[in-house]
């Protein structure tokens, strides 16, 4: 039994737009039949978790290990104590790891740990389906020049997905993560990424698409603790009906993290008068030789672009869909693998079909 009241209240700045009520409601969802696990056509490990429990028959672990993991102290992350881990020794290149999380009502918690030694490379694709509260804690440690590409899609029919990431990047390491919220569940993407070594590169972004009365948010904090780091946070939010999409992205530059290049681009699109988009591009800078810029905009689709398309004979719903798709595509373009990118784009399209 989870005591949701243990979560910080929305009076707390970092939880201002959090939907703690949505988490409680998701945790109380009645059981549903397991949804179909849909793996992409990629080589490598396939992990199927049903309510946080590995389905051995449907999984192929490769290098992945299952076991207990140390919980962090984050209000969400600390609930996950058991899960999967991937450790790569220096110089190794792993095949992609695909994880499908199926929720069948109620709540489930799962931890993950990814430790990449020097000069390694890995790719991770995660998919959330079903209904209920799926809570994930992912700890990532990247060694010298290690590279991790990660893509997460939240496509549950109902409930809530909460992700808590805790990543630390060594010298010259690179972490590129893209998150897509294209289901009918609520979501909180909570991440703390530290560029601990010089010359680290972090990209954390994605698209949150909300409709009906759902609330999705990202609360991502990138901390530059060493010089010459680069970070990009590119987020797009599309809100329909009475939903709320919130983007809170912060860049923190420590005293000696000179020559940091931090960039934030947060853009929101409102499809109806009743929807809400919240943005908070935050900069916290303690070093003087840095380049940090952020841009944030909220609005509706460009009336002139819609008019132009109408004049070319494109029906209004189609024109709206095309423009919205282009708006979302910005955030998904960073997925390097064609198969993964196409699958994510298809999910986004399917969402647009339903919402528009």
């Amino acid at each position, binding site marked *: 039994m989870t005591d949701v009241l243990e979560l910080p209240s929305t009076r707390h700045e970092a939880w201002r737009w959090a939907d703690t009520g949505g988490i409680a409601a998701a945790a109380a969802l009645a059981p549903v039949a397991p949804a179909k696990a849909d793996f992409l056509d990629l080589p490598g490990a396939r992990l199927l978790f049903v309510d946080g429990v590995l389905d051995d028959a449907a999984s192929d672990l490769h290098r992945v290990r299952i076991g207990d993991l140390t919980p962090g102290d984050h209000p969400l992350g600390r609930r996950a104590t058991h899960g999967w881990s991937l450790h790569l020794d220096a110089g190794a290149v792993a095949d992609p790891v695909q994880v499908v999380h199926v929720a069948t009502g109620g709540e489930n918690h799962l931890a993950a740990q990814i430790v990449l030694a020097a000069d390694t490379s890995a790719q991770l694709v995660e998919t959330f389906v079903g209904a209920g509260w799926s809570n994930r804690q992912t700890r990532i440690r990247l060694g010298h020049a290690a590279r991790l590409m990660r893509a997460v899609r939240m496509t549950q029919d109902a409930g809530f997905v909460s992700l808590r990431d805790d990543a630390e990047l060594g010298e010259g390491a690179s972490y590129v993560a893209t998150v897509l919220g294209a289901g009918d569940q609520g979501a909180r993407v909570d991440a703390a990424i530290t560029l601990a070594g010089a010359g680290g590169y972090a990209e954390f972004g994605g698209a949150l698409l909300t409709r009906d009365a759902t609330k999705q948010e990202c609360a991502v904090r990138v901390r530059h603790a060493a010089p010459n780091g680069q970070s990009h946070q590119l987020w797009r939010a599309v809100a329909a009906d009475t939903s709320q999409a919130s983007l809170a992205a912060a860049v923190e530059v420590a005293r000696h993290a000179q020559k940091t290049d931090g960039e934030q681009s947060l853009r929101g699109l409102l499809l109806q*008068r009743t929807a809400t988009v919240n943005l908070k591009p935050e*900069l916290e800078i303690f070093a003087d030789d840095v380049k940090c810029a952020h841009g944030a905009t909220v609005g509706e689709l460009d009336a002139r672009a819609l008019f132009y398309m109408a004049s070319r004979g494109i029906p209004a719903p189609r024109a709206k869909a095309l423009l919205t798709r282009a708006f979302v595509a910005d955030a998904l373009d960073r997925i390097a693998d064609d198969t993964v990118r196409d699958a994510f784009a298809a999910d986004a399209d399917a969402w647009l079909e339903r919402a528009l």
Partner: protein
Amino acid sequence: MATKNAEAHAAVAKKYEWGFATEVEQDFAPKGLSEDTVRYISAKKNEPQWMLDWRLKAFRLWQTMEAPDWAKLNVPPIDYQDAYYYAEPKAKKTIASLDELDPEIRRTYEKLGIPIAEQEVLAGVEGARRVAVDAVFDSVSVATTFRKELEAAGVIFRSISEAIREYPDLVRKWLGKVVPQHDNYFATLNCAVFSDGTFVYVPKGVRCPMELSTYFRINAENTGQFERTLIVADEGAYVSYLEGCTAPMRDENQLHAAVVELVAMDDAEIKYSTVQNWYPGDENGVGGIYNFVTKRALCQGRNSKVSWTQVETGSAITWKYPSCVLAGDGSVGEFYSVAVTNNRQQADTGTKMIHLGKNTKSTIVSKGISAGRSDNTYRGLVRVAPTAENVRNFTQCDSLLLSDQCGAHTVPYIEVKNPSAQIEHEATTSKISEDQLFYAMSRGLDAEAAVALIVNGFAREVLQQLPMEFAVEAQKLLGISLEGSVG
């Protein structure tokens, strides 16, 4: 650049030239804060019963509240019982003319360069606009100038204590309407113990014939200053109001918790400019004023406009968010700010633009300059209500870092509930470009003058918004606050 900055810190030694104290005999309220203090202040001001009741209600509310802690500020605990809440210079109860003002106080203002005699501000400049001044010394207003001329135009310009006695209906109608008693910890405290401040009423269709200004001076030791300003611009009226402030150099921290309320009716315009130069403490962060201020404007009427311009160079800690509630259709809110922090100063300042009416517009331009070991935060909120069609907002906040020991932070909140809104936010953080410095120095400027030139250029968009008399002062002030901080 780093070494240059190091030299710079060594050179931050410019004295705070407004830091003298004036020897005048003063009456104090008993030290500490209780209902009796509130009653004492109210009695001193000869206030009607409703005013006392209002204060007491606020005081009881305040006792149940907690100080806000969300700002990026490190505020040492404040002992509210260890201060005087009322200090007034001992003088004749009523002065018939300005000549009867205590010469010590008069000299203080002369020294500060504040014209409390009715003279032209820029002597020798033909056609220069005149400025009417309300001079507030600790807890009381000691002089208001140009009353007669303003009265001829129908403009009421009074200290708030006088206004409560002379225009109770008008004050009662608006006091606490923009910043309610329960608004926040410091505003509620102010409601209970405010001592003086300015009241301005500009009637229908009147363009106030001169700039109005209040000059706040904290003089006495161990006192807090709690002033209250209320400006109401009726239909089609226009008023430009300036506010300046200084305090003596003292080792203790003094609290300044003011509330400013502005109301603009249909087609009215209020321009509110502040040059805040409270004592910032010394280079080790000892002493200085805690400037915890609530300023809010209600653009109630159609096509009304409120413009806040602030130049913040003083105070040990600044906590201040001049805001606009844009309720009237087509109303306009503007916020132009330059905040300079040096040494150990901390500033968390910005604005809120609450769009409620249709076709409302807001512009935010914030320039933060941090030097020494200071922290400078822009915190702002742009909110668009579901009913507010066609809202436009443009926000730009730029930060300039002049040392590698300071911090510059930007925390903008954007909350939009109407798709027809167009909200744009841009921000940059940088240090002074080596190229610009090199160029300026190759043209014969020394490093300090070059930095001053570049900083003034950086802040120009905001300084342009100030009335001329203030712009000159503000530019000088920017130069002084940063003097030696880059070499």
